[in-house]
């Protein structure tokens, strides 16, 4: 038993070191970013859209607005398609076909984000520019690209949630004379609701944190977009664009942008966690 204790201790130390990674990241990002938020003042940092680091102006409102706009657009596309695919694969698809399609959808998650960005630039952006007007680099282009990128996340978690609904629910509904679709949206989707909420929130986290694809298709101006055809700069692309050059206050301001992003993601994560807990607790009971 002595050996057992020793092994247990070693494993605990390793587990804690893994967690200390998180602590380290948090400490570093905040240490680098927080001072400038305090110096500039939360109001001027978060509620001003005046970003001109060389002149000492550090307002990130337009980036926050940009990130939110792009993420909202991505969620509309990601949810409609992602959930649609999840419903098809679990409710209306022969098992053999689903077994092929599911890994294919998951493959979408493996494609590098630079490839998505590149495909957006060479195919989507000219289409938007030619047929809808504007520079092509736009909220719309970013939303579509990001929507495709978050789709696999939404789909695979939704599929898990739908499959976790006990089979008798489905059978009971069908036995009462409901069609498959009535069963799907009135019984299955309802029962899997909080799992789907988790899927949506994690997808949102992915969308808001994506960098390279967005930088290529968003256009990155400093102005808040007024229409979906306007270009947009997000928090992530702001960091990636200027990090290479930044020093002093400018770099701190970029870290502060990172802090903002970090906090937004943490909040989303916690919400997702609570949602999935609720879902786990209700599990089969509901």
């Amino acid at each position, binding site marked *: 038993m002595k050996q057992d204790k020793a092994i247990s201790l070693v494993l605990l130390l390793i587990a804690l070191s893994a967690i200390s990674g998180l602590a380290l990241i948090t400490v570093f990002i905040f240490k680098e970013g927080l001072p400038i938020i305090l110096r500039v003042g939360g109001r001027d940092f978060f509620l001003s859209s005046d970003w*001109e*680091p*060389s002149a000492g102006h550090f307002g990130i409102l337009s980036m926050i607005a940009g990130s939110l706009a792009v993420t909202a657009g991505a969620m509309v596309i990601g949810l409609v398609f992602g959930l649609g695919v999840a419903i098809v694969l679990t409710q209306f698809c022969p098992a053999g076909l689903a077994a092929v399609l599911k890994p294919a959808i998951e493959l979408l998650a493996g494609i590098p984000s630079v490839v998505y960005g590149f495909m957006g*630039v060479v195919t989507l*952006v*000219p289409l938007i*520019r030619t047929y809808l007007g504007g*520079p*092509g*680099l736009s909220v719309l282009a970013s939303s579509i690209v990001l929507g495709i990128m978050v789709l696999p996340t939404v789909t695979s978690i939704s599929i898990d949630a739908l499959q976790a609904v006990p089979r008798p629910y489905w059978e009971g509904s069908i036995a009462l004379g409901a069609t498959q679709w009535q069963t799907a949206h009135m019984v299955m989707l309802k029962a899997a609701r909080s799992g789907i909420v988790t899927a949506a929130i994690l997808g949102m986290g992915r969308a808001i944190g994506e960098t390279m694809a967005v*930088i*290529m298709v968003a*256009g*990155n*101006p*400093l*102005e808040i977009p007024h229409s979906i055809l306007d*270009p947009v*700069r997000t928090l992530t692309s702001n960091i*990636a*664009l*200027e*990090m*290479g*050059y*930044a*020093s002093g206050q*400018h770099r701190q301001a970029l870290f502060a942008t990172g802090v903002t992003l970090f906090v937004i993601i943490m909040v989303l994560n916690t919400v997702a966690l609570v949602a999935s807990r609720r879902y786990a607790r209700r599990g089969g009971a509901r």
Partner: protein
Amino acid sequence: MVRGMLRLLAYGTAAAWVLLGGGCGRDAARAVSVVGSTSIQPFAEFLAEEYDKKNPGQRVEVQGGGSTAGLQATANGLADIGTCSRALKPDEAEQFTQTLIARDGVAIVVNPTNPVNGLTSEQLRGLFSGRIRNWREVGGRDGPVRPITREEGSGTRESFVNLIMGKERISRAALTQESNGAVKELVKGDPAAVGYMSLGLVGEELKAVSVDGVTPTAENVLAGTYKLARPFLFVTKGPARPDAQRFIDFVLSPEGQKILETEGLVRAR
């Protein structure tokens, strides 16, 4: 089979940790690292390639990151040579030893379908600040103007701002791209676009317009008539390391200068 995979994983892990531990003698035979401007990066890479061919055993490693990043990296010892595609600010000039390796024009580029062939400094200020919103105002077709700028910190941007914009600010609505190539791609596809980029990288697909009546060519930059030009600098912190100095010497040699010239830059001396 599964046991084999376990074992492989274990050996691989062990090897990785040994490498981690053993790699501490990093200063031995370290490559000369050149970090900085994305505008200079392709030229520096090409020079490094040629230098390596001539001097087997010497290694030069080129990084992007941006002019300011290059200076920073040099300041804290991360890089042996920093590259900078703009004039040093006074406080920077005090801190570093600088070597001019070439000069580069900043070309104003528009889509080839755009009928405008020349612009004045005043018109450029208007286009980029957002005061001029229609190409008709500068003699082009009726249609919106879409200025494309580089990101804050870029040497190209700082040169453009210093030489053209003066006190005026670049429009907040201007699209921001992170490299010469990205500016090029965008202008190539968008008839309404106007951008600025390294003259050496313009190529055939874009139209570089004349500024204040002077065409952007290497000769005009060398002659000093095309005023939109900037220095390409190598900076070191104090005197360079011997192997770094050898690379700098190579770049300044007639052979090195010839390479830069064929690539579209303007020789330093």
